[in-house]
């Protein structure tokens, strides 16, 4: 039995106390909370919020709608694995049988433990990622995981949605050129104009804005729609922009575009900042070079941490109900009322954050592009 501080402390700054993690003693609780549809009660003697929250924030191989154990409703997603031993294998994640921490496929080739798939028998925990740049340091076999996980599925869904929405909007502009926008276009046009007039043009200038606008608009709408998808309850709690892999790819694109478009002026500022005394150069130059890499890294962490933190806070309010509900039903209901009120409040804030983070990512990307392409005039 170990007492530990939990995630609540981290996110709320609230000391909920020493939550006791009791062992699994096979004592199944019969009640199944379906709070918010997507959150289930850990069926243990003592409720431990940390694994509960991590389970909901982390990427998964299926979309967990609601319920727990046998009654749980999952939407299985395709698992795509490649290993030298078994070659390419494609199957649905429902092929993993059994419940509990470690599950196997029917042919006994793969096992899933703690949300990670590995070759059965090899006891390394491959931290498998959808990008496939995974190198489990196993002594024999390496498993490459290209699975369509929850985040990848959400990402593909957002891409399809954006293609559809903007395809429709573009068609309507072609059909009625010069007319006032109608319907769907009415929603999208102000946002596009906002990105152009408030983000791209002030930081890049009229001419260069045209060059970078396609990228900025893509990033803006992808982040915005992905954030909003994550806030829809009852559909499995997508955490697309809270997945490091996805934000890392976007930040890499920003880094590449900045570096490849950097002009003489930009590199000059980086390697020999003008107007700086020579004896300060050994300090300034390394800082400038570190800063070049740090900017996209912070871009990545800001988005990931903000979106994940939002999810964690809402889940913490859910956990609060379950923690108090354990001691008595009345306490559970009492806390539940306030928790729900705070949760609705947090949802409103998260709607703002969803937009704000898309705005900040795009704005900072535009500013970095602007720095890289800025013409010397001093």
């Amino acid at each position, binding site marked *: 039995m170990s007492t530990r*501080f939990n*995630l609540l402390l*981290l996110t709320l700054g609230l000391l909920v106390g020493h939550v006791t993690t009791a062992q699994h003693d096979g004592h199944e609780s019969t009640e199944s909370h379906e709070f918010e549809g997507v959150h289930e009660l850990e069926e243990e003697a003592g409720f431990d919020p*940390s694994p509960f929250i991590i389970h909901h924030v982390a990427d998964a191989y299926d979309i967990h709608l609601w319920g727990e154990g046998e009654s749980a409703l999952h939407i299985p997603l395709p698992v795509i694995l490649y290993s030298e031993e078994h070659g390419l294998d494609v199957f649905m994640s429902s092929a993993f049988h059994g419940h509990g921490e470690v599950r196997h496929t029917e042919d006994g080739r793969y096992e899933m433990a703690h949300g990670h798939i590995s070759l059965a028998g090899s006891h390394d925990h491959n931290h498998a990622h959808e990008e496939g740049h995974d190198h489990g340091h196993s002594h024999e076999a390496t498993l490459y995981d290209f699975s369509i996980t929850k985040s990848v599925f959400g990402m593909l869904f957002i891409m399809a949605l954006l293609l559809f929405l903007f395809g429709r909007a573009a068609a309507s502009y072609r059909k009625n050129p010069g007319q006032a926008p109608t319907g769907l276009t009415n929603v999208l046009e102000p946002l596009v104009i906002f990105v152009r007039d408030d983000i791209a043009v002030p930081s890049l200038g009229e001419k260069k804005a045209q060059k970078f606008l396609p990228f900025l608009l893509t990033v803006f709408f992808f982040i915005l729609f992905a954030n909003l998808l994550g806030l829809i309850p009852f559909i499995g709690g997508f955490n697309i922009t809270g997945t490091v892999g996805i934000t890392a790819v976007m930040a890499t694109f920003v880094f590449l575009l900045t570096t490849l478009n950097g002009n003489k002026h930009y590199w000059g500022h980086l390697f020999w900042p003008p107007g700086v005394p020579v004896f300060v150069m050994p300090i300034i130059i390394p800082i400038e070079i570190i800063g070049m890499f740090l900017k996209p890294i912070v871009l990545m962490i800001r988005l990931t941490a903000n979106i994940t933190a939002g999810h964690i806070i809402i889940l913490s309010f859910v956990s609060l109900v379950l923690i108090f509900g354990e001691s008595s039903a009345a306490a559970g209901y009492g806390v539940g009322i306030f928790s729900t009120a705070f949760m609705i409040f947090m949802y409103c804030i998260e709607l703002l954050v969803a937009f704000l983070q898309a705005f*900040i990512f795009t704005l900072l990307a535009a500013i970095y592009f602007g720095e890289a392409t800025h013409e010397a005039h001093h």
Partner: protein
Amino acid sequence: MELLTILLEIGQGLAGLGAGAAAIGAGLGVGRIGGSALEAMARQPEMAGDLRTNMIIAAALVEGVALFGAIICLLVALG
């Protein structure tokens, strides 16, 4: 309990305190930025648009540092 486990427990508690400290720092920083921006906007309402953009950039930078702190605390608490 062994000494090591006790130390680990203390470390996790300190991680929480660290997150709190990061939140205090970020709160002070963002508060100052917001306050100054409001003052400036009240003085020159015609500059409100520019000021708002710059305020958000500065707030995002401050927040980035605070999130670094939060992430490190999260790693300590979970690790």
